[in-house]
């Protein structure tokens, strides 16, 4: 049993003993909740690290972000510490009610685990209802994601951050009237009812190397994160603004966030069997779209591991929304419980592939050159990712 699973069971026991456990444990000390389809674990870690400038902080260390994980985090940490908590999108309304956070950070919404989450519009609708009349809370929200804006725009206190949006396919339609949204550069809006991007107070600029966050007074803060890619700069920008909403110093926040090396194994380099792999968490089309750019160029072979346990989403048809065509010119090792779905997807994408049940076993028929690589990139869905982390730790 992994640590995360232990937390879940512990949390269930506490909730059984006291159904109001979250409310009792949270009382007055939850600084921030963080939710999004992608990046919530990284954003939470960045924010928690930044908030430590004001004193001790408790937060999840395992990504357990449903009710049980939140309860255990609150129950086992320093009882006087400030809490910065990651929360699953579907559980956010109930945990928001119970914890009354000072800040709630909303990053992005896109298709993910549709068997469990329902559709993006439904999540946005529940978030919107949650925020109506939430006078005690400041919402830090991504102005570039129309679903986030739709959910947050009637909240009493909102700070809009232009954090960017790469994956637009799940916010093509106006949630108010159903018309197709128009996009023009950073701007977007509904031609029919006028729903449009709010004017952001804070903006993120990505240089290709690092992020530059600019505040409403024109002051800028450089984000030199160790976590790679533009999407992590977006996570950092939202976290930085959340610390401003908490009355903290954004410059100090940026400095502290730059110390975060790896979050719950993401991008960690580990040894599994005979291979040294870099772990990439790739669990939905939006996340994949950003990850392909982080991988070394073709013809370097890579491993892709697809599972369909509850935490991965039971339905892997999202593989067809991932632009796997961009992996052409290299051989992909298809593995995981749903390696056959991946193989059919790669067949249609024109990507050379081999299906291997256990690529880490001695003598596995790996593609030419893979054994000679110092580090092999391995993109994996949630449960596959955690299985690899656990295996690496045990070795």
């Amino acid at each position: 049993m992994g640590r995360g699973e232990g937390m879940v069971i512990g949390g269930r026991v506490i909730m059984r003993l006291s159904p109001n456990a979250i409310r009792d444990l949270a009382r007055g000390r939850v600084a921030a909740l963080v939710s999004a389809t992608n990046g919530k674990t990284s954003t939470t870690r960045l924010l928690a690290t930044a908030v430590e400038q004001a004193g001790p902080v408790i937060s999840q260390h395992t990504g357990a972000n449903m009710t049980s994980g939140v309860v255990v985090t609150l129950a086992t940490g320093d009882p006087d510490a400030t809490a910065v908590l990651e929360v699953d999108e579907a559980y956010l309304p109930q945990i928001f009610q119970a914890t009354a956070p000072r800040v709630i950070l909303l990053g992005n919404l896109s298709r993910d685990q549709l068997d469990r989450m329902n559709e993006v519009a439904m999540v946005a609708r529940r978030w919107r209802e949650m925020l109506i009349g939430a006078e005690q809370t400041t919402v830090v929200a991504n102005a570039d994601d129309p679903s986030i804006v739709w959910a947050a725009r009637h909240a009493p206190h909102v700070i809009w951050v232009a954090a960017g949006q790469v994956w637009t396919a799940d916010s093509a339609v106006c949630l108010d009237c159903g018309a197709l949204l128009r996009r023009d550069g950073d701007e977007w809006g509904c031609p029919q009812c006028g729903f449009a991007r709010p004017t952001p107070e804070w903006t993120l600029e990505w240089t290709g190397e690092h992020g530059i966050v600019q505040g409403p007074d024109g002051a800028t803060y450089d984000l030199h994160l160790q976590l790679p890619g533009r999407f992590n700069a977006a996570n950092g920008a939202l976290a930085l603004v959340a610390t401003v909403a908490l009355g903290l110093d954004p410059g100090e926040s940026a400095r502290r966030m730059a110390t975060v090396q790896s979050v719950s194994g993401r991008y960690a380099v580990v040894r599994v069997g005979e291979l040294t792999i870099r772990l990439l968490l790739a669990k939905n089309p939006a996340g994949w779209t950003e990850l392909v750019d982080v991988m070394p160029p073709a013809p370097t072979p890579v491993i892709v591991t697809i599972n369909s346990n509850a935490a991965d989403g039971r339905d892997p048809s999202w593989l067809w929304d991932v632009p796997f065509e961009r992996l052409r010119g290299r051989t992909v090792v298809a593995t995981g419980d749903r390696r056959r779905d991946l193989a059919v997807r790669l067949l249609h994408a024109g990507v050379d592939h081999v299906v291997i049940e256990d690529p880490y076993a001695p003598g596995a028929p790996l593609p030419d050159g893979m054994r000679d690589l110092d580090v092999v990139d391995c993109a994996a869905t949630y449960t596959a990712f955690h299985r690899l982390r656990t295996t690496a730790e045990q070795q």
Partner: protein
Amino acid sequence: MITLVSIYPTLLGTYGDGGNVMALKHRAELQGLDVEVVTVESGEAVPESGDLYVMGGGEDSAQTAASNALRAGGAVKRAAERGAAVFAICAGYQLLGEYFPDATSTPTPGLGILDVRTDRLPKRAVGELAATARDPLDQVLTGYENHAGATHLGPDATPLGMVKAGIGNGDGSEGALSGHIVGTYLHGPCLARNPQIADLLLGWAVGRELPFIEEPEVTALREERLRTVLD
């Protein structure tokens, strides 16, 4: 040259249904057929001269928007009446019918080119779906369903198959077939997991029956999925 019209893939493409267009292109290539894909986004006019029209699934508000635009334009209906093939999944399937429930469960008129009517299932159907095929198909149908629609077939439509695992239309049948129009709840995507349906549609488009060409990757996936749900 087959003209394949992909209708509103942004509005109707929530569950990987864009893969159906990829699968049709792929099967056409195997069969030695040329395909031109015309992608029509919401707000654009649907061409009337297509050979094969494809629609995916989508959220409630997108479904209503798509249905209203397609009814106003009329091109899909006119193309279907002259015998063009139409293939639609889930929300797309429902909107081919007489009516379907909108986001507030109010019956909303569809295109009326398939003799089906959709209301709500008592409980959302989410999971693997397998069905025994009916003529002209003979391979077991496999896919994943995620919908709340109960679809009732009228006398002018026949089920695509009979459910062995899952919910399908809600009455033991799955999907509907009428002339060259096919509607189904199978995501997965449907045509990648059921290439026989892809070949049927392509055969209609070129006016002759196509031989079935087996691909080992696809067979391995089908066997695994059917083993999972039927054993």
